[in-house]
């Protein structure tokens, strides 16, 4: 049956793991973005702001550094954890009922 077959296919295990990595990255991305923007750096008064490269620190960390950090993490995740699999079903041949 379809269900058993899907459990057995090792490629789907890889796919599910990678989907979870995607969700993990989004959660981290959101936490970083939110924490720097609305945390102590951004919520204080404008007089108390300090500046990095001319930008308010909250903005620099949340948006500029956040973007760089995410790019690095995405590269690392793909290079370290993503596996190459074949997309075709040849290996299983005619077994596929559809």
């Amino acid at each position, binding site marked *: 049956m379809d269900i058993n077959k899907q459990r057995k296919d090792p490629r789907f295990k890889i796919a599910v793991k990678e989907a979870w990595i995607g969700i993990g990255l*989004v959660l981290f991305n959101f936490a970083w973005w939110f924490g720097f923007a*609305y945390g102590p750096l951004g919520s204080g008064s404008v007089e108390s702001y300090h500046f990095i490269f001319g930008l308010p620190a909250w*903005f620099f960390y949340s*948006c500029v550094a956040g973007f760089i950090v995410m*790019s690095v993490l*995405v*590269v690392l995740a793909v290079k370290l954890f993503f596996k190459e699999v074949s*997309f075709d079903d040849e290996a299983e041949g005619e077994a596929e009922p559809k």
Partner: protein
Amino acid sequence: MNWQVVTPLIIFLVLIFIIGFWASKQMNSSNSFLQEYFLGGRELGGFILAMTMMATYGSASSFIGGPGVAYTQGLGWVLLAMSQVVTGYFVLMVLGKKFAIMARRYQAVTLIDFLKERYKSKWVVWLSAFSIIIFLFSAMAAQWVGGARLIESLTGLSYISALFIFAISVMVYVVIGGFRAVALTDAVQGAIMFIGTLILLIAVIIAGGGIPKIISDLAAENPNLITPYGFDGGLTPLYVSSFWILVGVGVVGLPQVTVRAMSYKNSKAMHRAIIIGTIVVGFIMLGMHLIGVFARPILPGIEVGDTVMPLIALKVLPPWLAGVVLAAPMAAIMSTVDSLLLLVSSAVVKDVYINYIRPNASEGTIKKMSFSVTTVLGILVFLMAISPPDLLIWLNLFSFGGLEAAFIWPVVLGLYWQKGNKFGAITSMLIGTGSYIIIHLYCPNPFGMHTVTLPIVLSFIAFIAVSLITGKKDTNQVSLLS
């Protein structure tokens, strides 16, 4: 007409033409016509895949509307726009390899093919074809209006002539070249969007006297402009965060994006696309919206947000370079429109005509149908865009969030949750889109969140609950039958 500005735009259009023609020659006759025309034979490499996803998603709003709002709102709107970085990696990671494998196994050419095989339900097919045709048709018309307005404002041509130029430029390569032409031109358009953003950002920073000067000018005018809360403090953390659903993770549910996740050649292409996509989307979103904010001290007092981007380009750049940079929003609009046109055409040809009207149509008939449906749709959009009917404008309001709410769970849970069934999918689609329209009309932005949030939650609950309730009955029936 300012020829120095217009010449680069004309060169750009000619370039797109040539690529479209070239791509149409590349059609591989050994594959089935449908696979070739609507999916490019599943042969996209990493760079093209990243660019076509970014360019399809990045539309007029990223280059015209967004910077205009950032001009008014300040850095808080750039913060909001940065929620879109996730689209660069999330869609491909979540749909990922499983979607690629299943799409091949089902021999799916469209998103609806996938849903049809997954749920085995006529109703799922009709509902999704209907919503794609209605919503994306209106979204497309709205983008055409935007494209024509842009040409109109840059060249001084009348709206009709501008619309005509725009329509011809897009239609020729989409009709003759299909998906491959769309993806290839998207790649060029994406590159133009990237380069345009880079040039303009640098020019704006120089014209404003450096970032520290620009920021202090902004703070002097209104300190709120450099806080995360918007010019009047109206951007609450909850509201801004809810955009992570609308323009971030929810994008997984947009058919024009999803169909790209079944078009790539192999895992290597997908891996590269994730990396390139994240960097390019992030850079363009950050850059374009910063340009909007930085334009404020240089060019104060602009009343109409949509004119900020063209005006600032003409102000800070020499005319010919402004022409190059203004090809970027043009590219953004064209690359969105071409994908939508092809997608709506595929819904009509593949999902309605071949599925239900003439299942055994010959290759030649399909070919003729595909060309002519695409052409007729293009002409229809053109006619609509001459003076857009109210209904169309009204429908366009729901196209983005409405489609997300309809498709996100049937696609994602259909992929990863075995127990999801057709009853769950149908209810989820109806409740998702229905509640989006109702909430949008009667109670927009409930609890201070963007309208899309609740429908996504409701359609999730509906999908799970209905699948579980009907699931038992379903398996009983199966076991009785077998």
